[in-house]
């Protein structure tokens, strides 16, 4: 699986405005809505589901990365968005550090394989220090999209 298979190009932000965990979730789900990745009437339900998942344990996995996610019956395929917070946000991460890079995923309930393949792809790329550093330094949406494309072309994570 590649980023292009699940990241909606219209749902990518280099300047997350949110300053709290809840605001991050709302802003990112809004970006999925703006990119026509989810239905308007499902917005609150998806925010609630992701928040509930966070209550089970933070998806802030360390190294400044978080992958908030949920399964939701309203989506027919895995959809995701990316956001960078230049200042970093307290996301209750496992390593107690601020989070700068967010990948938010919403997947259909009966597709655990796609969800796992997306996590595998995201984390394999993020293990590459160069990719991680460049992503954190991204100033524009186009910067991020270029990096994701380069990653999909096997230029990182090897």
């Amino acid at each position, binding site marked *: 699986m590649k980023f292009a298979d699940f990241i909606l190009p219209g749902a990518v932000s280099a300047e997350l405005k949110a300053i709290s965990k809840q605001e991050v979730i709302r802003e990112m789900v809004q970006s999925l809505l703006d990119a026509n990745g989810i239905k308007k009437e499902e917005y609150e339900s998806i925010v609630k589901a992701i928040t509930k*998942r966070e209550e*089970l*344990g933070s*998806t802030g*996995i*360390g*190294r400044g*990365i978080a*992958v908030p*996610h*949920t*399964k939701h019956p309203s989506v027919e395929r895995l959809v995701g968005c990316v956001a960078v917070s230049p200042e970093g946000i307290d996301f209750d991460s*496992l390593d107690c550090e601020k989070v700068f890079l967010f990948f938010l995923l919403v997947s259909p309930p009966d597709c*655990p*394989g796609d*969800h*796992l*393949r997306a*996590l*595998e792809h*995201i*984390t*394999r790329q*993020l*293990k590459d220090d160069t990719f991680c550093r460049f992503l954190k330094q991204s100033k524009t949406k186009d910067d991020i999209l270029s990096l994701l494309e380069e990653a999909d072309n096997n230029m990182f994570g090897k």
Partner: protein
Amino acid sequence: MTREQKLIKELLISNRCGVHLRVGSMLAQKAKEFTSEIRLRKGSYVADCRSVLDLLSLGAFQGDAVVLEVVGADAEAAFNAITSLFNARFFEDEVDQA
């Protein structure tokens, strides 16, 4: 002087959702209770069991075989603790699959 042990075993991923984030967190949290080096290997990918990022990057799906390698003074206890989580299928049936 404490004697260092090395234990290796192939384990099967039997839970439906594989090593997803909650399972990765559970494994990492357990691994941090021990001083031994704990690694999971799938093909050419090797994960430090203390790192959720590493564990997720394995891409370990239901039905996949992974090799658990534990080296250190408390290897036996660590080995038993990690294999217990596998045997319990990471309690997937008891928790809302997330």
